[in-house]
């Protein structure tokens, strides 16, 4: 019994240590657990950085939301956020209200709104890799479209 517990614990520790090795991206490692608030990003410089910052401020102003990532590409604008724990019962309603609000305020944008942790994590990873210069504009656009496709698969 004690032997089995020791083996189990040592496997867990080995896995945890090995999983944290060799990863340059720091912010995204903790993105599921703590607040990261990544910078609003555009996949190409002339896509309107000001607009993206405005969108992020708009989303952040909602009381139920506490961690926001906004990425704008050629066509799609990805808005991902975390919902405060006690407000998670109203998640669908919050998503609906936010989508409506954004679409009314920015009718030209094509929004993809999600509160899924996986989408949030991938958005943070994308922002981080773009900021570090590990992704070209084209690669970033491609990755953004992949993430947007992931959200449409969930519906």
């Amino acid at each position, binding site marked *: 019994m004690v032997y*089995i517990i020791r083996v189990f614990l040592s496997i867990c520790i080995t896995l945890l240590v090995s999983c944290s090795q060799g990863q340059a991206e720091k912010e995204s490692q903790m993105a599921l657990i703590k607040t990261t608030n990544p910078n609003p990003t555009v996949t190409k410089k002339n896509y309107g950085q000001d607009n993206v910052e405005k969108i992020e401020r708009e989303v952040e102003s909602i009381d139920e939301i506490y961690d926001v990532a906004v990425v704008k590409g050629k066509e799609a604008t990805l808005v991902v956020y975390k919902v405060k724990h006690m407000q998670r019962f109203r998640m669908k309603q919050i998503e609906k209200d936010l989508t409506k609000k954004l679409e009314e305020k920015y009718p030209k944008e094509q929004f993809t709104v999600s509160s*899924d*942790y996986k989408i949030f994590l991938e958005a943070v990873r994308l922002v981080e890799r773009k900021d570090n210069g590990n992704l070209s504009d084209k690669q970033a656009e491609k990755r953004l479209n992949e993430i947007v496709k992931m959200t449409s698969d969930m519906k």
Partner: protein
Amino acid sequence: MASKQKKMTPQQQKYQQLQQKHELKRPVLKNCIKAFFVGGLICVVGQAISYFYIYFFDFTEQSVGNPTVATMVFLSMLLTGFGVYDRLGQFAGAGSAVPVTGFGNAVISAAIEHRTEGFVLGVGGNMFKLAGSVILFGVFSAFVVALIKTLLGMWGVL
């Protein structure tokens, strides 16, 4: 209960009172606290596993439930085989039986118990003795809920 007591002879009633006086009281609150913490701990492990799948694989929050449940059931089956889960069950009671890990335990413990009767009639025939009802009522209630959701969707309520 009162009618039962009326039928008892005075001697039986006296014995009943004596028995009630010496009966050990079940530590209900203590059991509840144990079940709460151990059940919660199992859920924490489940949450960690689901974060693991979200972080390292392409599972979203909606789809991560399937591999997490499969992993939890598999782990509880292994622990039952090693004899660890039974001890945990004795300590935590409902705390180890109510989470999905209890399902794995129910399957494997029945299989181990009837191993001596052979693979087909023993293991195969009795493996789902306890867990069979969980599957039956689970499938049936899922069917009913899906039917209600479909009808509400057709009527435009949802």
